[in-house]
């Protein structure tokens, strides 16, 4: 018998007043112990989906189970099984970090001593022991996200929902969260991760689902999605006026691609295995190249192919905003 999926979603819908269909029939399945990356631009329906799966919002159509419990009829059981770190860490700036984790332990029914021990362990784990008795309002964005993550783990949940856990964080803080999520997953926790960051999904997720206008438009392993776009290509910058001759030589190894910036592009069926023969052939023809780069299809290419626009542009704007506010 196949193991029960940690998350199973069929035709999930959410219509808001005014007829806005934020989630328009999502189907997905997340296996136990998997990290599922849920990608999409702002307003695509990521957060609404997460709010339904975490029982914060009732669906208006479809059904879903989380940790084997229906999100409507078994909402209480779902809440016992999940940890949730929502977008824009929902923290009280007047509480201290320790108070928050202890409150979370009480909410999840841990005995007082056990709650205190867990709080100390978790604060230590996310490197906040020294700041534990400071008010959360004095924490940096990265510290707040780490605290939020620790709070979500207090009852050792089977399924962890992370809604854009690194949005607005600087690269160092972002990597810290990634390491912690990867560590948790190695311990067996299923992670449902929504993100706008392609690199985040690429590095962490076993599989990704791309949502656009409330619907899943692609779903698979990141590598498979990228492979579907075709083989990688080689981009060569050529010195002087030898572009046409270089193009002739490389055409023997693969299909030439159009280029708008003066570079010579050629699709490589064998990937990196074709690079050495090309270099040898160019050398034998007495042709010099300034640079040579193997370009693999990226998740952004997948995103463009599936949705028609770049997520990476939003990502860059976010990163610039984060840097400006740091």
């Amino acid at each position: 018998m196949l193991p029960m999926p940690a998350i199973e979603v069929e035709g999930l819908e959410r219509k808001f007043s005014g007829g806005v269909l934020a989630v328009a029939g999502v189907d997905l399945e997340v296996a136990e112990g998997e990290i599922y990356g849920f990608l999409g631009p702002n307003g695509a329906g990521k957060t609404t989906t997460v709010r339904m799966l975490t029982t914060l919002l009732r669906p208006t159509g479809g059904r879903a189970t989380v940790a084997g419990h229906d999100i409507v009829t078994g909402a209480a059981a779902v809440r016992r099984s999940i940890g949730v770190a929502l977008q824009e860490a929902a923290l009280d700036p007047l509480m201290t970090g320790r108070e928050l984790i202890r409150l979370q332990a009480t909410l999840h029914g841990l005995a007082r001593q056990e709650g205190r021990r867990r709080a100390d362990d978790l604060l230590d784990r996310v490197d906040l022991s020294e700041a534990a008795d400071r008010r959360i309002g004095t924490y940096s964005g990265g510290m707040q996200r780490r605290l939020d993550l620790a709070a979500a783990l207090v009852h050792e949940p089977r399924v962890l929902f992370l809604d854009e856990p690194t949005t607005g964080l600087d690269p160092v803080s972002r990597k810290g969260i990634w390491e912690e999520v990867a560590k948790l997953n190695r311990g067996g926790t299923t992670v449902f991760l929504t993100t706008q960051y392609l690199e985040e999904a690429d590095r962490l997720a076993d599989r990704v689902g791309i949502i656009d206008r409330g619907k899943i438009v692609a779903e698979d392993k990141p590598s498979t999605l990228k492979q579907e776009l075709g083989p990688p290509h080689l981009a060569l910058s050529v010195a002087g006026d030898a572009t046409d001759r270089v193009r002739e030589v490389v055409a023997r190894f693969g299909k030439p691609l159009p280029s708008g910036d003066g570079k010579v592009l050629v699709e490589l069926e064998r990937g990196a295995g074709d690079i050495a023969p090309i270099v040898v052939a160019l050398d034998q023809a007495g042709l010099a190249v300034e640079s040579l780069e193997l370009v693999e299809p990226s998740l952004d290419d997948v995103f463009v192919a599936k949705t028609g626009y770049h997520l990476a542009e939003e990502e860059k704007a976010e990163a610039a905003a984060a840097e400006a506010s740091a």
Partner: protein
Amino acid sequence: MSAVAHNARVVAALGARAVRQTFRRPQLMAPILLFPTLLLAVQTGGAGGAIHLPGFPHVHGFLDFMLAGAMMQSLMLAGNSGGIAMAVDLEMGFTDRLFAAPIPRFAIVLGRLAGSAALGLLSAVWFIAIGLIFGARIEDGVPGALLVIVLVTLSAMAVGGLGAAIALRTGRASVVQGLFPLVLVLLFVSSAFFPQQLMVEPARTIADYNPLSFIVEGLREPVIADVSAAQVGEALLAVVGIAAIGLIASAFALRRRLRTGG
């Protein structure tokens, strides 16, 4: 741990957080203790001669009469502050953290009310202490003082229910904060600051039916005269009525919020 014990622990923890939150946010604390104390000082100092008006209840001093009004103002503003704090929680998403926890959702409202009750108790003790320090007498002694403390605590919880309902319905702190002047209007058309038998119409009739007047008289009676069971009964009835309205409205607002997501 049984479900009841767990839920009681959750309510207590949320109540403790509500109290800490009030102490750490001066704009929530000031209306509960500072403003009523200042108003008490100004009115007692400036309008003390009112006790010689014909028809004014027999009191040892104007402070004895005014203590009930100050406590009523304080507990009303404690309820308002609780509503503001709850709306702030909704605005910043903290309530989502609570909604996502395996607790009965109404425990979130009860936790807030537990905090209002604790602040009401603090307010009662504060004003009784101030009264005694500045020469007020509590005619019914310690039992009278205890009755006042219990009544203020229950009333703060009841009024807190109204604040919670408005917060849950609107989700906006500015709306709950905007009710501050209304609280004062309701107080001025009750017997909080002036005997209703000396008011002119239509204020007198409004005060006669204003449930706050019943609570105020229930608080005032043990201070200025012998406690009457009828007066205490009327006060408790008014408290129960306000609490029922607040809790039912909170339950509906909570249900709506959970169904619609806002």
